[in-house]
């Protein structure tokens, strides 16, 4: 790393001064957490990825101070830590928003509407890829396949699933995030900030009561085969379940009573006759 050269000047490769340390109280707290992380592995260096998540939880992105902290604790050089931190896309290298909104634009989601959603969000928010809104709330980026192709198009916010999105639902989603409303994903716990999410990634359980249970069981698409195998049928379509894509989907109207979680399916489609995957025939679900 070099000093930032003056505008238009050529950098002479002067090494940067070492990063400042964390204040003593922060360092003491992080060291206690880090000791717990390191204790999980036979070799301390294995703790590097979780520790980078941990310092990201402290400051919202991986800073030079955070990387120096990791290097100190693991007996590595800062160069070794920087080499790792810059390899993985989940480590942010600049201050970013409380909510990281990632639109899947890998082929399947892109074709199914991810490209249109990403385009709509850029225009709606007035920012480009990997940019943050002025209020510091939302960072927009396009992401690669997130293993939810049967719920395409998919949007991830702080790595929680927002399934079967449209440009309209995605725009309302970011509006709600910026308005500070509680937003629930399709599957998973109510959103917390990016820093709180990073702490879970470092291996510390989510402290919120009900976070594990939130979002219920498998999503509607995950159950498609099981429902068929159990002989669930719908009137007029023997042996077949109702298409998530039929029955007027996508709807531009949020379901009543869910002003801030318009795109959050309920625990199962069976519990919500208006859900795109339902309704299913009564009484057959638990029948076998």
């Amino acid at each position, binding site marked *: 790393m070099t000093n930032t050269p003056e505008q238009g000047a050529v950098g002479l490769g002067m090494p940067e001064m070492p990063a400042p340390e964390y204040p003593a109280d922060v360092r003491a707290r992080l060291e206690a957490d880090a000791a717990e992380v390191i204790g999980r592995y036979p070799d301390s260096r294995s703790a590097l990825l979780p520790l980078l998540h941990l310092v990201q939880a402290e400051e919202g992105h991986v800073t030079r101070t955070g990387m120096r902290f990791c290097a100190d604790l693991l007996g590595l050089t800062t160069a070794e830590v920087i080499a790792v931190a810059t*390899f993985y896309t989940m*480590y942010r290298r600049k201050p970013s928003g409380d909510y990281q909104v990632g639109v899947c634009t890998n*082929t399947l989601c892109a074709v199914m509407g991810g*490209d249109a959603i990403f385009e709509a969000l850029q225009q709606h928010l007035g920012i480009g890829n990997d940019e943050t809104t002025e209020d510091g709330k939302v960072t927009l980026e396009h992401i690669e396949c997130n293993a939810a192709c*049967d719920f395409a198009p998919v949007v991830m916010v702080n790595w929680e699933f927002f399934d079967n999105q449209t440009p309209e639902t995605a725009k309302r989603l970011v509006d709600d995030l910026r308005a500070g409303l509680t937003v629930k994903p399709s599957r998973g716990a109510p959103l917390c900030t990016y820093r709180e999410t990073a702490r879970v990634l470092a291996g510390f359980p989510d402290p919120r009561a009900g976070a594990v249970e939130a979002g219920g069981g498998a999503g509607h698409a995950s159950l498609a085969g099981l429902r068929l195998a159990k002989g669930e049928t719908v009137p007029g379509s023997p042996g077949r379940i109702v298409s998530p894509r039929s029955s007027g989907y996508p709807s531009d109207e949020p379901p009543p009573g869910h002003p801030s979680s318009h795109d959050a399916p309920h625990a199962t489609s069976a519990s919500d006759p208006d859900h795109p995957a339902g309704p299913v025939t009564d009484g057959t679900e638990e029948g076998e």
Partner: protein
Amino acid sequence: MSVATQLNEESPEKLLSPVLSAFWDEPDSWTLETYLRHDGYQGMRKALEMPPDDVIAYVKDSGLRGRGGAGFPTGMKWQFIPQGDGKPHYLVVNADESEPGTCKDIPLLFANPHSLIEGMVIACHAIRSHHAFIYLRGEVVPVLRRLHHAVAEAYRAGYLGKDIAGSGFDLDITVHAGAGAYICGEETALLDSLEGRRGQPRLRPPFPAVAGLYACPTVVNNVESIASVPAILNRGKEWFRSMGSDKSPGFTLYSLSGHVTSPGQYEAPLGITLRQLLDVSGGMRPGHRLKFWTPGGSSTPMFTDEHLDVPLDYEGVGAAGSMLGTKALQCFDETTCVVRAVTRWTEFYAHESCGKCTPCREGTYWLVQLLRDIEAGKGRMADLDKLADIADNINGKSFCALGDGAASPIFSSLKYFRDEYEEHVTGGGCPFDPALSTAWGGASHLEVNA
């Protein structure tokens, strides 16, 4: 031809065989309590009463093959671990599911994480390991919460830790979250990443079975492979072999996605065909027909509607010129531009190439430049041969399978859809309207034509 119009002659109850997904629809399906009500940890009890080598032989006899893409026999992988070598042995579960189109392990871990933990106890007993790792991709936080929870539940119940279920066997499991890198799904890159390094593949030999994690004997298995083991132990290898074919026995998760009526997870015996799956699940979306599809993610050469009757098992898909891969059946209808699809996949490979070897790092870069030009109508006819040539210089010549995966969509799309590439060149651009291929576009298109 239109799959959607075909009659449903085979009943879904007979065609499908939910095992891992059998109780995903129950409330709190992810809890230990629910798992125990469905024969949970019964396979583990049987295995712990058997000598380790007998467990390996049993799983080998069952014919279980790896569900992560390569299809290597799971029991044989366990057998390669040297015994009595005085070194620690490790089991590392590859839960880095990132292959485009692949979406089976994530719902499995979200709805039924204990099947993996029970399988890990059995596998570790077999290979004499006392510390196992789950390497979960970082971008799935709700799944990470459930894994943390399930591991804690298992410790409390005595299924992990010291003297598991009174057997004298000890096992610790560490849940490890990755940080966003497709390449870490490659097993040696995964091991480097788990050691706290950049996730770059290693030269082999030595193979992980000899020098894996911390240079110790290590088994790396896919989530679904390990999660399938408890049912085999509990219900018997004969039961397992009663499904599928001789060389590809058992059940597996097929993931249907794209322009289909009912995308989702379908657990069925190996060897089912896409036609059968589409028939029972409502077919392609109304008014549209299948154009191309992948049998096992973007790295497996694509198929067309000529391949609807290919048995989806290791041999069947292989004989038809592709690979079973992860059974990620991404279906695209006639509104989809194949050049656009392949360009996007290629951009993915270029982005995810780790940079260690030249053919992949440079080759994927140049493929993207050529494809973007062709898609934008700025390509030349000679570029099509150049594409094939570059893909040929990556395929089989790069450090790991990422390079082969990058070449697959190029070769297969040129084979089946060369006309469409030429149309982009001669017509000065893409003839498709992307709005029609969206989840909502096809429906409105229908309404207009109705």
